[in-house]
């Protein structure tokens, strides 16, 4: 393969940072959560890239596990967001600030 591994890593790094930015900038809980998903994917990409670099499959297995984790997290996360919405009819995280100080 002609593409240097580093490119993939940099790509994953960029995606990771974009995900970070999403978490920091968006107010919609769902979108924030999506950004987290993006970060997880970035991590996966890095794992797979490293796997390719080392020339073994561990990395891919790890990526597989992380997908499972992501799935589970999504379930819990969406459940929480739904229950929050039921309470305050909003998924805008800026509205939820009764606890502060």
């Amino acid at each position, binding site marked *: *393969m*002609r*593409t*240097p591994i*580093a490119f*993939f*890593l*940099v*790509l994953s790094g*960029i*995606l*990771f*940072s*974009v*995900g*970070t*930015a*999403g978490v*920091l*900038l*968006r107010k*919609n809980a*769902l*979108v924030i959560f*999506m*950004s987290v*998903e*993006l970060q997880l*994917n970035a991590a*996966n*990409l890095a794992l*797979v*890239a490293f796997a*390719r*670099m080392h*020339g*073994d*499959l561990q990395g891919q*297995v790890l*990526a*597989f*596990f992380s*997908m*499972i*984790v*992501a*799935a*589970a997290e*999504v*379930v*819990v996360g*969406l*459940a929480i967001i*739904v*229950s929050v*919405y*039921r309470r305050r*009819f*909003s998924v805008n995280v800026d*509205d939820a600030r009764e606890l502060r100080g």
Partner: protein
Amino acid sequence: MPLDNVVFWVFAPIAVASAIGMLFMRNAVHAALFLIVDFMCISVMYLLLDAPFLFAVQIIVYAGAIMVLFLFVIMLLGVDRHEDLRERLRGQRIAGLALAAGAALEIGLAVRAGIGFSRHVPPSALSGTAEALAKPLFTTYFFPFEVTSVLLIVAAIAAMVLAQRKAKAVTLAEANARNAERDARLRDATK
């Protein structure tokens, strides 16, 4: 210019672009769609990296299941309206972007220092097909694999505990009314 290079240079920009697109879409649905595009590109990268199985899983699980779930929730909650992107928290936007850039920069630097951009890996014999992955999964990684089951159980309980509650009957109309009223309040607050 070899094929894989071309593929990479085609899809990598798309991936980044769609990610950024997600970042700036005022509508949650659009954001979700951009994310799906992003996941697709990543799956292509998997293909380039000899991970056919993950390529499949990525499309099915992520682009398929997970994002559909997202869209479903978005619809369910009826929050597919335009979210105003005006930033009310002082310095949040600048800081956020700066931090993101910083993180990207650091990772880039570390990669350059650790691996270098001219390092090419020889084509490897084993490619991540299903059976190839099955072997470590059921030997070395058997225990973690079992542990994931617990994870899923917990997730299931979570869904039951949190979602399954006698919701106070609230019509979408009411909800939207509240939202409008709240947005107005916030707008005043920001003036």
